[in-house]
Every structure is written in C-alpha cells, then in structure tokens.
C-alpha cells in the first residue's frame, strides 16, 4: 500500500467463531469417558471465544493418547514423535512467528522420554502453550506406570508397586524457570477455560498441567481431590490478585508462612501474586498437598514476563541484516583472499 493512502477502516476485531469450526472431520478415537474429551472441548470453546483464525493455529504433539489431539483440531497440526514435541514447537514458532503454537503432551511424553526437551523449552521461554495431560499412567501403551505415578502404584510393569518417586510437574516447571505455570482439572470446565485463557494470553511458554482421568488404566486417580462433592474443600484456586481462600463456603484460607503453607481462616489467607520475583511462594504451595488434610492448589502458580526465544532469535537476524546488509550470494562466495589463474 502506498504511504499516502490512509486506510479508512481499522482492522475488524476477530469475531467470536463457532466452536464447531475448530473441529476437524476426523472421528475422535479416545475411549468413551476419557478426560481428553473435555480438554478438547475446552480448547475449542476457548479458541472460538477468542476468535483466533484457524489458519494461524498450529497444534504440535508427541506420542500418546493425549498426543492425538492435533488430529481433532481443524487447524494446522503436527503429530510428531514420542517426547520431542517441544523441539518441533520451538522451531515452528521461531520460523513462523505469526502462528499461535499449542503443544499437547502426556505425563510420559512430556516428563519421561521428553523431559529434557520440556526443560529446555521452558527455560528458553518459547512462546508456546503447553497442555500436559497428566493421567499418572501410560495410556496408549496400555497401562504402565509413569513418572507422575505415585510410588507403590501397581501396574503391569510394577506388579509389586512402583519403587520410583514421582515428579511433580509444577515443581519441575518451576525448576526450569517457566514463566507461566498453572494447573487445572479435566472435569472442571469453567476453571479450565479461565486457566487456558490466561495461558493463551501469556507471552512465553505457558505450562498447564491438567489432571486428566484415564478411565481404562487409572480410573479415579484424582478422585480424592477432584470429585465434585469434595472438590471445593480439597482444592484451593490460585487466582492472581485474590486471597487464597477455599471451601464450599469460602471460609478457609491458605497462608504462606516462611517455607510452609498452612490452612487458616479465609480472613487470614495470603493474597496471591504469581508474579513475584522469587518463585518461593509457588514452590511452597506446590508442596502443600503432600501434607494430609491440606488442599491441592490449582490455578495459576506463576506468571512472569521474560524475553522469548523466538523473538530473540528473529531479532538477531534483523540486527545482523541492519548492521551488515542483507546477505548476497556473490558476497558469500567471492570474498576473502582470492587469486586468479589465467
């Protein structure tokens, strides 16, 4: 467009789309009752609400039941190999920065075989939204214990109970220096939508652990906490700017005291700020559920801003071009000490 022509209209705000527009024509093949359905539903709902154009979305995944996710989205999608989705997502976002990149992974895919790549994507702060489907089991391979399975879990490969200590995804992400960390629950649509919206709006890696029920191989593994009748008393929602209150009557609270989180009355609850310089508060909260009787924190553990890898990489290219001029083939080859042979 020539400089002298001023556009008369501003770009229209994306109109909310129909959720159905995000559904691909592929038949969804998860087991009936699998928690994955509600996650798919929430993501489609959220994207429709936010009005993100389908062609600007790219879903990347590894291997696992959860990693089938991209096939069910009517967007761009790459179903990659086991554990490596973070590496693909990193370069996709970097090479094609206009895309909004989402990553679907499981507890095995993301924290066992792919733990290393997850670590590095988180520390690099690539602008990617991560959905970690935690069902504390290997679903696709039919029920072996995973790195998030509780010690003692009996599975086909641990007939006497697993001797492994479990990794907590939240603490893992905190240790990696992730800039956005949250937890939500497959059966809690409202909460999931709120958390995913915050994740979608975060610039940098947004890491969301989702408690996901595998009806076949680990049914009910989160029931103690998420079952509707107990959920309000067994979870505390970390809402930025709000006090850490919980309970059906919102009468209880959590107070972060030095290196400990204690249950107190709502009036004494600590106001939650996930953007403090130190991640100590988030860390303390992430451990509290290990004490019997304490609620399990869900919601937003951490939300800070930091430079992203994808922007940094592209800025260097721009800087180099500004400094040295865009490279030309002739200058690439015909340079340095040359001599002629007649």
């Amino acid at each position, binding site marked *: 467009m020539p400089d002298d022509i001023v556009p008369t209209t501003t770009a229209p705000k994306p109109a909310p789309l129909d959720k159905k527009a995000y559904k*691909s024509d592929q038949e969804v093949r998860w087991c009936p009752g699998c928690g994955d359905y509600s996650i798919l539903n929430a993501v489609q709902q959220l994207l429709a609400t936010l009005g993100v154009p389908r062609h600007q979305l790219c879903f990347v995944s590894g291997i696992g039941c959860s990693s089938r996710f991209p096939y069910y989205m009517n967007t761009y999608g790459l179903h*990659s190999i086991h554990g490596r989705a973070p*590496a693909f997502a990193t370069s*996709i976002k970097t090479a*094609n920065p206009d895309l909004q990149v989402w990553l679907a992974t499981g507890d095995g895919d993301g924290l066992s075989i792919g733990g290393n*790549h997850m670590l590095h994507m988180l520390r690099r702060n690539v602008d990617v939204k991560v959905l970690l489907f935690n069902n504390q089991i290997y679903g696709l391979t039919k029920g072996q214990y995973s790195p998030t399975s509780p010690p003692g879990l009996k599975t086909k490969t641990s007939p006497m109970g697993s001797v492994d200590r479990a990794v907590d995804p939240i603490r893992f992400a905190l240790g990696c220096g992730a800039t956005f960390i949250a937890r939500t629950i497959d059966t809690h649509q409202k909460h999931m939508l709120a958390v995913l919206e915050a994740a979608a709006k975060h610039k940098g890696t947004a890491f969301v652990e989702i408690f996901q029920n595998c009806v076949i191989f680990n049914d009910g593994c989160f029931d103690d906490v998420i079952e509707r009748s107990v959920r309000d008393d067994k979870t505390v929602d970390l809402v930025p700017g709000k006090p850490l209150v919980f309970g059906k009557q919102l009468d209880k609270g959590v107070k972060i005291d030095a290196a400990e989180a204690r249950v107190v009355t709502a009036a004494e609850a600590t106001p939650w700020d996930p953007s403090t310089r130190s991640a100590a508060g988030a860390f303390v909260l992430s451990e509290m559920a290990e004490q019997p009787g304490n609620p399990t924190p869900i919601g937003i553990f951490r939300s800070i801003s930091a430079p992203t890898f994808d922007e940094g990489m592209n800025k*260097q290219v721009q800087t180099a071009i500004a400094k040295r001029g*865009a490279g030309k083939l002739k200058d690439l080859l015909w340079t340095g*000490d040359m001599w002629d042979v007649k």
Partner: protein
Amino acid sequence: MAQSTSELPLQLIDSVVIRFAGDSGDGMQITGSQFTHTAALFGNDLATFPDFPAEIRAPAGTQPGVSGFQIRFAASDIHTPGDAPDVLVAMNPAALAVNIKDLKPGGTVVVNTGQFGDADLAKAKLTSNPLKDHSLDAYRVIEVDINKRVIEALQGSTLSPKEVQRCKNFYTLGLMYWLYNRDLEPTLKWLSEKFAKEPAMVEANQKALRAGYNAGDIHELFQGRYEVPRCEVLPAGTYRNIMGNQAVSLGLIAGAELAGLKIFIGSYPITPASPILETLASYKHFGVLSMQAEDEIAAVCAAIGASYAGHLGVTSTSGPGLALKQEGIGLAIAIELPLVIVDVQRGGPSTGLPTKTEQADLLQAVFGRNSEAWLPVVACATPSDAFECAVEACRIAVQYMTPVILLSDGYIANGSEPWRLPKIEDLKPFPASFRTELENFLPYDRNADLARPWVKPGTPGLEHRVGGLEKAHLTGHISYDAENHEFMVNMRAAKVMKVRDSIPTPQVHGPQKGKVLILGWGSTYGSIWGAQEKLAEEGLEVARMHLRHVWPLPHGLAEIFARYETVLVPEMNLGQLVRLLRSELPGVNFQSYPKVQGQPFRVHELTAKVKQLLGR
C-alpha cells in the same frame, strides 16, 4: 617478494610436502594453516591434512599429545597432501618419534634441540636420544635450538617467559618461509588482525617470524633454498582456499538462496562437525536462524519443525549424532518434508576416534532407520566439492520433498584446497513453491517427481494435519489399511529412486574399458586420482570413476562396469559401498579394498593394490 638477500641459489621444484609436528599446545595447526594461506595466495595448488589428538591439551611432551599438520604445495595440479613428507619439523622428541617413519628416505628433518633434554626424552618414552643414536642417519637433520632462539629474538619484550616460548611456532614458520622463499606479508598481516587487541603479542610473533626467516641466512642451516612456482595448470578462474566444513556451510546457504528459502539450522556440537554450526551462526544476515539444541534429537526435530513451518531445515553432526537423529529423520520421511542432514564421519564405533577420519556411516545413512525409510545420500569428494554437494543436497531435498543425508568426513572437514569460485549466474536456481490454491488441495497428492505439496502453516484455507502415523494416499488421513500401507511404502521408495532421473551418470576417467576400474566415493577421490596418475607414469593405464550420489545409485553403472574385468572399491570401512553395489548390480566383479586406520589412503597403497590385481 623475498625479503632476504640470500646468496644461496633458488632451486625450482614442482611440489613439496611439509609436515609440522609438535605438542598440542605448540600451535602446529596455526603454523600449518598460515603456511597454507601463504601458499594459496602465492597461487600454488595445495592440499592439507591436519591430524590432531582428541584431547585439547594431552599431557605435554607425550606421543599421544602430538599434533601434526601436513601440507603439500605444488606448481602442478595435485590431488592429495602427499604420502610422505619431504620435510618434517619436529618441535620435540615425541613429535619426532611419532612422525619420523613417514619421512621420505633422505628427507629433511628440522629438530628443535631446545626441547631434547632427558626429561623431554622421558616424557616421549624414548630410552635413547635419536639425535645421538644414529637412528636418523638416513635423513638430513637440521638442529636448531628454537627455545633459545626465540628468547634471543624477543629480548626486551614485555611478554612473560612462558608467552615468549609460545612464539616458537612463528619462528619455525619463518624458517620454512625462508627455505621456500615465501612472502612474510600475509602472515604479518594475519597476526596484526588476529591479535589486534594485544599489540605486544603482534609484535612478538612478528619478530619471531622475521627472526626465523633471517636465521635461514645467518646460521647457514640449509644448503639450498627452493622455489615452488605458481600453479598455472589449474582451470582458469578466481580461486580461494577453502576447508571442507566451511564449503559445506557456504553450500547450504547458497542452496537455500537458490531455493528461495531461509535456513534454520538445529545442531548439537560434535567433532568434527561443530564448525558447520559455528559458521552458519555467523551468517545471520542471510536470514539464518541457528539454534544450538539440547541434543541431537532436539536438533533434528527442530530442523524438521522449521521445514514444516516453511524454512529449509538443516542439521549437522557426526556418526554418534546421526544415530540419535534417525527416529526424527524417519518422521521427516513420513511427513515428506525437505531436510538436509550433514554427517561429518569420524572413526567409530561409539566415541571411537573423534578427530580421525572414516567412511563407515554409509550403511547407517542409507539404511539406519526403522522400517522402510529410504532417503537420498550425497557424498562430498574433496573440500571444494563439498560446496557443490551441499547445494545438490538442498536441491534434492526441496525438489523431492525429502530428507537428504550429506556425507562428509574428518579428512574433508579439516583439509583444504583451492576452490575455483563459481560464477553466480552459473548457479541454477531451484525455487521451492508453497501451495496456496485451495481448489483440489490434497496434502498427499503428488507431482511428476512424486513430491507432495508444501504448505506453509498460516496459509488460510489449507489447514491440515500431518504426523508419523501411516497416511492414506492423497488425503493424508490416518490409515491402518493394509493395502494402503504397502502402496505408501512403495510410493516413498519410488520417490527416492526417482531422484536418479535428475542426476548424471558419473564420468569414467581413463580407458573406457579394460582390466581395472577404480571406483570411489567420498574422500578417497584425491588418493584414487593420484594413484591413477602414478600408475600412468609407470605405463599402467587404469580407469577411475567417483560416485557423488551413493543412494540411489545413478543410472548407467551396470553398462560401464561390464566393460572392466575388475571394479576395485577402496573405502575407509570394511566394504560398505561394495555391499550396496553387490546387491544392486550382481554379476560385476567388485573387489573391496578396505582401510580403517583413521587415516586416508596413501597413493602408494592404492598403486600397490592395483599392481597386485594386474599381476605386476
């Protein structure tokens, strides 16, 4: 040009081989590359062979810590760094002990006597002093106390005694410059640029260089001086000296430009491939996105992701890294995206001989993945050929929407030779095209080359999913159908075989039929050519041929091979190409000539083998 007023007459000679050998910390690689740089600017043809230990600083003075750099420079067209040095420069007893057996009978050995005390001999595990025990009687020995001479030369310098000793290599270089009547200017200039921030270092090293040069005259160490004239027989053109890794890097950038794409390189450091990542990282003004990944798996996956996103994905590594990348490469084959994987081969298995050369990844490159996962493999023959091969790998990757493995090796990577610069207008573009039309879009539709359409995510209306699960022909939907699977397996293989239609049948050099055809691939090129020339000098005419495309094999080989009684295949492995050839071209009398010593073939080894075949 020469700066001295030496009285000694200059004798003209055609070609000289010098080997600089010293401790890993003695700066022999710099000395060698400076000699190379000067010879290149002078206009000699040349070939180099750096040979160094895997340790950065192996225990000082020991034999395993010896680092060497061999250069051959010539007035004629040469193809190898030479079988045996004419001159050996040995900075300590260990360097002498390791290298003396290679020196030509009657050759010259310059020995730094300043490093020949009892302790030095002990470190080299020598029980007697070679300078005194007559073991060097067959050679012309020039004894110079270089340790002392640099101290004298640098008297009054502000450098510490230790730093003064570090200038020894430039003193030695000066001495060699005098002997071969070389211009000091290029090295003086290089020093002032290299140490621009440390003027004392510039001055000291320049002084040492000049002192070494002048010592040639003053101390009357040598009986004569030599001149190797410019090489006027190379094809006309403009040249620059280039190392293999550098040529691969430039070729990748050029290849991407010719395709109209930007490069994304994801790599993980590994000897001897690291300089490719380092070089590409310095070309960001060409739009290069370079990522040092957390491991080779992430590196290849990031490269594939970038190709998916519309860049040209590239990853560079050596054998152990290629092993790690193979699952990822399989995905690139399944989702049919362009990708260039550079494997700079080194000695193995496992960590093996990281700084030594080998060609034993050929079968890993062609077959090293699960299931039927075919891809084209291109192999560089020489440092300058690496440029063309890298461009060729990019072309095949883009034209056929396939990963391509480009094989180089340690010998090519670190060796150097004059490179005739291609005219930019002679580089033929092969523009990539991205699908944007909505009508009749099928992600696994194919063109005449059997390549599928490439769609940049972000293109409105073409949203689709790809992945590693088997895909239905045309639609690309997940398919577990038995017949479809077999169809797709065949289709992917057929696409790779289709590459043959775009590659030439390699030329035979020498007699078009006869007793022996020497068939090479990769870095055996120079040795084979040298051997053929040597045999011709002795009146034995044999043919030679070299494969750039090692998979798929080019059309027309069977007809050619049928014209020879024996096809001799020298390889730095246990006969990997020969296995491929025997299965693809049964009925030909292939003779394998394996060598796996971490060292390139010597010309005389090949001539001896051919003579044996000829019954001579």
